[in-house]
């Protein structure tokens, strides 16, 4: 898209364009290599050249061929990500609604909640693990690791809700009250439906942050790994392209999650703006 009075590009354009090209190369280059190599021929190795094209390494994931507990860690990760997403949505939406009214100490509470975004995740996880040990509790993926991941996803969820609620016109709530809605009806019939696209965004963040969380989870998951921990273990002891196949599969899962979320937001937005019902 050129501007009407298009003169020569300023030199800064070339600097930033080159930078962006590098960015794209660094981000997508290695990933693309991994996706391609995951289809390596049956006799091939971890690097090029491709000795053929096969689904052998995907098959290796399912048939537990000394590549670790991919199936188990994958299902644990999915279940954990769903639990984290649900808890993040419930807690950040209620907290976000609560923070709209300034209360004594609301600033302090807010900064306490947000501070975990800048705390080093590895030490948060370490602290939680030590804490569980002190209390004589077993660490496990659905207890200590769940808590550790929530220290990461909840502040994000809260910040997203602030952005979402910042654009929410309180007149909607007053109009509902004016028309006779009880507080509960107001929430269910007006507030939540209007906020729904933002809430889906919070859920998506909760899901994806949990799904590939490593630093907080590594010391809190106990003996049963989540997927990122399993993949990390594999990099040290698996020397076949099965490792790449894991990368391809997990990427596909992430894209599915994002796709579902974006499509549902788009559908909601479209229902609110496009012509629905009879043509006029």
């Amino acid at each position: 898209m050129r501007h009407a009075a298009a003169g020569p590009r300023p030199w800064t354009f070339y600097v930033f364009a080159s930078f962006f090209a590098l960015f794209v190369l660094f981000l997508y280059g290695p990933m693309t290599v991994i996706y391609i190599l995951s289809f390596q021929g049956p006799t091939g190795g971890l690097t090029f050249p491709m000795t053929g094209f096969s689904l052998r390494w995907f098959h290796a994931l399912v048939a537990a061929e000394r590549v670790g507990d991919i199936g188990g860690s994958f299902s644990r990760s999915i279940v954990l990500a769903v639990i984290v997403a649900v808890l993040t949505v419930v807690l950040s939406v209620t907290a976000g609604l609560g923070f709209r009214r300034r209360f004594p100490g609301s600033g302090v509470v807010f900064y306490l909640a947000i501070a975990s975004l800048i705390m080093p995740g590895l030490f948060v996880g370490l602290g939680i693990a030590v804490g569980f040990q002190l209390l004589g509790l077993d660490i496990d993926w659905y207890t200590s690791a769940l808590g550790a991941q929530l220290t990461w996803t909840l502040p994000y969820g809260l910040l997203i809700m602030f952005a979402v609620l910042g654009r929410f016109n309180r007149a909607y709530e007053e109009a509902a009250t004016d028309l006779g809605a009880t507080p509960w009806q107001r929430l269910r019939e007006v507030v939540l439906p209007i906020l729904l696209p933002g809430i889906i965004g919070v859920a998506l963040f909760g899901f994806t942050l949990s799904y590939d969380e490593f630093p907080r989870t590594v010391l809190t998951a106990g003996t049963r790994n989540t997927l990122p921990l399993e993949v990390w273990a594999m990099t040290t002891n698996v020397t076949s392209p099965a490792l790449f196949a894991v990368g391809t599969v997990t990427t596909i899962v992430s894209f599915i999650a994002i796709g579902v979320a974006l499509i549902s937001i788009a559908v909601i937005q479209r229902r609110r703006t496009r012509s629905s019902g009879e043509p006029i």
Partner: protein
Amino acid sequence: MPAGTRNGEIRIVGVTKRFGDMAAVRDLTLTIPDKAYCCLLGPSGCGKTTILRMIAGHESPTTGEIRIGGEPVVGLSPVQRGTAMMFQSYALFPHRSVLDNVAFSLKLRGASKAERHRQARELLAKVRMERFADRLPAQLSGGQQQRVALARALITNPRVLLLDEPLSALDEYLRLRMRGELRRVQKELGITFIHVTHTQLEAIAVADLVVVMAQGAIEQAASAQEIFTAPRTAYVARFMGGQNVLSGTVERVADGHAIVVDEHGVSFSTAANGEEPVRGSRLVGSIRRDRISVSKAQGCATASGKVNSLLGEVHAIEYQGSYVKLTIERPSGEGFVANIIDEDFFRDPLDIGDSVLARWSARDVLILEGAADAGEASMDEAGGVLI
């Protein structure tokens, strides 16, 4: 349902509303008769919206009492009050169709789908929006959204409808049309309307009762005609436009007329009805812009100092169709405006820079209450005067 009576008379007694240290409304007392169309008029920040929201039940007074149809309503919900509010942004629910927006209140009360849609369609027909029943609010123009908002508010069958700047989001053409329509609907339904606005013309065009407000208090509450032709204070005179405000010291009292002279030697006289003005006291008066005659000054010396006249230079000439608005620069620097009927003006047209003599009659001078400079500052923010 509004309890018992359908009486939409509103009594506000000694109401104060504070937000922190700031008093938005100060000890305000006002009665709005049943079935009246009342406009709360004032510049932004004068407390008019706060009053509306207190009547609606979206704010509670810090002190004081509000009665609707005789019943105290502070603490009651909007539905219990029998009020309905139309919001400035309309606040139509974006995820519901026009029909479901209007039917929303009935849905909350558990009406069957068929029944609530029937009633909603009836109201949509009343505001001529039945064709758009299946659309979403985002697919409507501003004027159409406003009609839907009106129908949605009316479905609760209120005895009082509260309108917060209902026309401010519309363009000029729609604003004129919709204000006529609001008045028509109000007459048809026979309920009390309270309409908040900062536009003088809007208020006097529709209202039975105009309440001019400044800084959380009422300056004057009266019929539109009275507000316009007989402002009580210098603030109202300036805010409504249509008047020139003069002030000065009472120099002498003769034949029941007080002669008032300002610091630039401009003098005016007025019938001293009621209590006799004291010599040396300050007096503020106003003269209607359309009761002033202007002629070319011939020989400044002769005219200068005459009572009920003023010498100055023409500063601006604005043709307004049926009259010409002539702004004369006074010695004090303040503008003095004369509205001259077009025929009279064009018989002997004036030009900018001409020296002119403006004259008026003592019986067109009104004595005002309050400080002479009241409202001078607020004129700019209120968007100037209207005529």
